[in-house]
């Protein structure tokens, strides 16, 4: 009798540890809107964009239900740690500082960083001396901000913005001379937007960071594992390329 009880108790303990790994039925994904063409609102108000489509495809692959939660960029990591959502799917570049706070998946895309400015301006982004006395804008806390601060803060004035659209607004309003921005975002919000003829890409692009990954809380290794597996599958089976082709005429696959 005693033995069966012990065995039973053991079985209960064992089975309870087995279900300890959280079953993910619903995964809440945070996204900072707008960040065209990765995530933005369609005229009817619904979320759309490359990452929204990719995220939905990945969730389908993982067989979980995904909910998108809109969250401003500068609070996106604290929000994750405060469990307002389970993962960040919002063009977050993988870097060492962030990896101290969150767990990243494998990169799912990497876009170059571009430099944008009015037609009249003539600078070489790789020669900081040519930016002397100019105003350089970047979104606060991004790798572009870090790059601009490291390279230009000694010669130029760095202006940091909380939102990407404020940054573009100030370029259009003539308050900025150079904008350091994710290249595809710059092309779609500056060059291809209304009145885009007045602006151009300055010099060559640079590759910054290790690409963009899904970020989750450090303890949710199983979730990241799921993401890695699903991302690998969609990259293989053509779903990724299909979504890529829908938004870009060049590949951003990594």
């Amino acid at each position, binding site marked *: 009798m005693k033995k069966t009880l012990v065995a039973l108790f053991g079985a209960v303990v064992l089975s309870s540890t087995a279900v300890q790994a959280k079953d993910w039925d619903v995964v809440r994904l945070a996204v900072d809107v707008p960040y065209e063409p990765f995530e933005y609102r369609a005229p009817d108000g619904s979320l759309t964009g490359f990452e929204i489509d990719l995220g939905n495809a990945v969730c389908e692959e993982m067989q979980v239900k995904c909910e998108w939660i809109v969250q401003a960029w*500068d*609070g996106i*990591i*604290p929000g994750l740690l405060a469990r307002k959502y389970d993962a960040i799917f919002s063009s977050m570049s993988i870097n060492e*500082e*962030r990896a*101290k*706070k969150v767990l990243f998946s494998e990169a799912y895309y990497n876009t170059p960083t571009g430099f944008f400015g009015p037609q009249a301006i003539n600078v070489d982004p790789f020669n900081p001396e040519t930016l002397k006395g100019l105003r350089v804008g970047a979104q*606060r*806390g991004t790798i572009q*901000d870090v790059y601009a601060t490291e390279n230009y803060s000694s010669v130029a004035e760095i*202006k*940091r*913005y*909380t939102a990407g659209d*404020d940054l573009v*607004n*100030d370029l*259009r*309003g*003539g*308050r900025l001379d150079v904008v350091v921005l994710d290249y595809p975002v710059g092309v779609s919000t500056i060059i291809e937007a209304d009145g885009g003829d007045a602006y151009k890409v300055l010099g060559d692009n640079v590759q910054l960071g290790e690409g963009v990954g899904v970020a989750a809380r450090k303890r949710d290794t199983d979730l990241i594992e799921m993401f890695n597996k699903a991302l690998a599958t969609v990259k293989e089976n053509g779903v990724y390329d299909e979504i890529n082709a829908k938004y870009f005429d060049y590949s951003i696959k990594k």
Partner: protein
Amino acid sequence: MYETIEQLLANNDIFTLSTVLEYWDGLVMTVQLVFLSLIIGLVLAIPLAILRTSENWLVNRSVWLFTYIFRGTPLLIQLYIIYYGVAYIDGIQQSMFWPIVREAYVPTLFAFVLNTAAYTTEIFRGAIVATGRGEIEAAMAYGMSRGKCMRRIILPSAFRRALPAYSNEVIFMLHASSIASVVTIIDITGAARDVYARYYAPFEAFTFAALIYLCLTFILVFGFKQWEKRWHRHLRPLSS
């Protein structure tokens, strides 16, 4: 002293010497911005408050409209409209004013001045209206003109009455100035946002900023208390 602080900071991940200097620059910016907007706002508010009590319907109502608009909309919206709006005025980018309004500083100061002027105008108007009827009648009986009566009788007592409400406005202005950081000005809040973005440490960054604001508020409260003690001496209860 300086060396001990430097040593202390060397052992801290977030509050390094450069971070603290950033906060210092932010503090200077906040104090400068708030001080200037309060002074200019005050200078504007006194004549506006007098006009606001005018019996001329048109003068009275037009000042009322100004205060109504600026008290009836959030300061953040006013700042956005002025800061982004000014860049889109036709020809402004070619005009001589552009180098000035191109900087975020002047449009921000402009928004703050108009906002605090609107509130201060209404504070002073209330104080002017509350002047004792008898005091004005006595002044008239002495043959004072309206202007002289305003200068000698109404305004001095109105300022005394307005002081407690005005000290609130000063503190509100200090706190409201934190929104300057949304238009790239690095004030205390702007410095906190930068530090936060660099170290992903919202708690430390904003707590430090809050402490600086608390110190500033304490100085203001203390200053106004001393001022009230002086100006409201006649209102204190008789003590032994």
